[in-house]
């Protein structure tokens, strides 16, 4: 019996999510040719879209796709083999012919996928290219899909990918899982790429969010893959920590903006809109990561601490019941792992919430005087909020104004404009500007 067109399409999509990274990774290892590998895998999925509705969904879609992609690679290599390089090419063809069709459980395939992820995220590649290449080869998105998500033309994205593949080949970036002495550093590089990818999707607002949201979902999916590939390694708890962090953020995606597309602060978000299933999964992951961390005596890294902070917010029923003393303490440990003025600012806000606005204001004032956050709009915005709570309206107004001038986006400027209007003295208010 042949499946309906929709069934076949669904099966191809599912296989794409499951198998792309594995097949691409293995073809790259055998041929050393990134574009050839990507093209052949894409061809295999195109063939599946034609073949499966007619002949039925194969019992092992992964093996079917691997065979088609491999045969395509053999054909391409045969027709491209020139006299001079024939020996090398013939050796590759022989290896392709002997290639295991395997399945997702094949341990060699897991190594290949890790190789692929680490190579895509090599620090010698520009950051935007690392994100794009990971989406293209590991997640199997088309160049057009990636271009749309990054709001650039397909030609621009295609050029970026071509450049990245050329650098891997010409600069001798090795296709491998980094050796132990490099693994800690390179794994945090991979996590940074995934977190950047997530934020590109998550922080988009308004009309853009519809186009960019898939980036957040892909980042979560890739993070899950990485977690499964790193199982048992010392870097697993931090990868799990990042996954928990992403899920905590993702759980409140629909409450981040109001119907007008304006930002809603964490405090004012409608907590009924939060995705409780994602919150529960994130909390469970975080608890598991802590357990593993304790048993392996590995100190939590910045993602685990950030996830723990997110947990404080996301598991509180109301903003007022948040354990801000714990949040402040967690920011304190974050400042020790990854010192930054932004972390100091967040700590000051948590201190204000747990010990009162004055204590927080003193910390922010010190930060303001150090000028380490000059030009960062959230400093005057936080300061303004505390001044407002202390009833110091005029000072609050100045700070809101300063924040609005520095705000990077229209949505943020509108939000600050609203706050500014709220602190306006009723009589002298004559409109902004």
């Amino acid at each position, binding site marked *: 019996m042949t499946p309906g067109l929709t069934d076949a399409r669904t099966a191809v999509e599912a296989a794409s999510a499951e198998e792309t990274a594995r097949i691409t990774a293995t073809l790259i290892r055998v041929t050393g040719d990134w574009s050839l590998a990507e093209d052949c895998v894409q061809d295999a999925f195109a063939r599946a879209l034609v073949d499966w509705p007619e002949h039925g969904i194969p019992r092992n879609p992964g093996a079917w796709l691997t065979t088609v992609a491999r045969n395509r690679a053999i054909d391409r290599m045969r027709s491209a083999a020139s006299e001079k390089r024939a020996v090398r090419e013939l050796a590759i063809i022989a290896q392709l012919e002997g290639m295991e069709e395997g399945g997702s459980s094949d341990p060699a395939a897991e190594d290949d996928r890790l190789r692929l992820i680490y190579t895509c995220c*090599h620090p*010698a590649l520009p950051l935007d290219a690392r994100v794009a290449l990971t989406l293209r080869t590991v997640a199997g998105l088309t160049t057009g899909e990636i271009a749309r998500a990054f709001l650039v033309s397909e030609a621009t994205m295609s050029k970026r990918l071509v450049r990245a593949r050329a650098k891997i080949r*010409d*600069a*001798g*970036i*090795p296709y491998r899982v*980094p050796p132990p002495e*490099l693994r800690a550093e390179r794994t945090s590089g991979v996590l940074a790429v995934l977190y950047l990818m997530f934020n590109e999707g998550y922080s988009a607002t308004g009309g853009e969010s519809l186009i960019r949201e898939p980036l957040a979902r892909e980042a979560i999916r890739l993070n899950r893959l990485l977690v499964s590939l790193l199982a048992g390694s010392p870097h697993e708890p931090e990868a799990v920590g990042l996954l928990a962090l992403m899920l905590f953020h993702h759980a409140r995606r629909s409450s981040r903006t109001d119907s007008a597309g304006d930002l809603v602060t964490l405090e004012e978000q409608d907590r009924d809109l939060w995705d409780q299933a994602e919150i529960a999964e994130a909390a469970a992951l975080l608890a598991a990561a802590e357990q593993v961390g304790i048993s392996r005596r590995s100190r939590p890294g910045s993602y685990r601490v950030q996830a723990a902070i997110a947990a404080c917010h996301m598991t509180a029923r109301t903003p007022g019941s948040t354990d801000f003393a714990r949040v402040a303490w967690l920011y304190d440990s974050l400042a020790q792992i990854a010192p930054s003025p932004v972390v100091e600012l967040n700590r000051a806000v948590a201190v204000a919430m747990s010990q009162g606005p004055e204590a927080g204001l003193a910390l922010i004032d010190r930060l303001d005087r150090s000028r380490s956050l000059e030009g960062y709009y959230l400093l005057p915005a936080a300061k303004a909020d505390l001044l407002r709570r202390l009833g110091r309206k005029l000072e609050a107004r100045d700070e809101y104004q300063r924040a609005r001038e520095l705000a990077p986006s229209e949505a943020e400027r509108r939000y600050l404009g609203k706050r500014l209007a709220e602190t306006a003295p009723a009589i002298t208010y004559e409109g902004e500007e």
Partner: protein
Amino acid sequence: MEYMLFICSDPAAPEYVAAEDNIVEWVAEMEARGVSRHGDRLRPVEDATTVTVRAGEVVVSDGPFAETKEWIAGYDIIACADLDEAIEVASKHPMARFGKIEIRPVWPLGV
């Protein structure tokens, strides 16, 4: 693969401390590993001469081809398994601390 290391000055780098200069050990290690092909210091840019030929005329001028705050103070040609090894070799060079190092893969002309 062969790479060329451009050993560059960097005005933003920490000041040079002679006692922390490990160039002798670096050369010894890279020669013992078979990494080093050739390398040396270069005289300062004041001693540079730039040559162009335009419409058949040889034009000689004093100074480097580009006036920059950073300048090339030395070079090394190294042979490595891959970029990761080249990065490791460069990171051990004293000028990675007192300046900066650009790694460029050699692109054989094949003539």
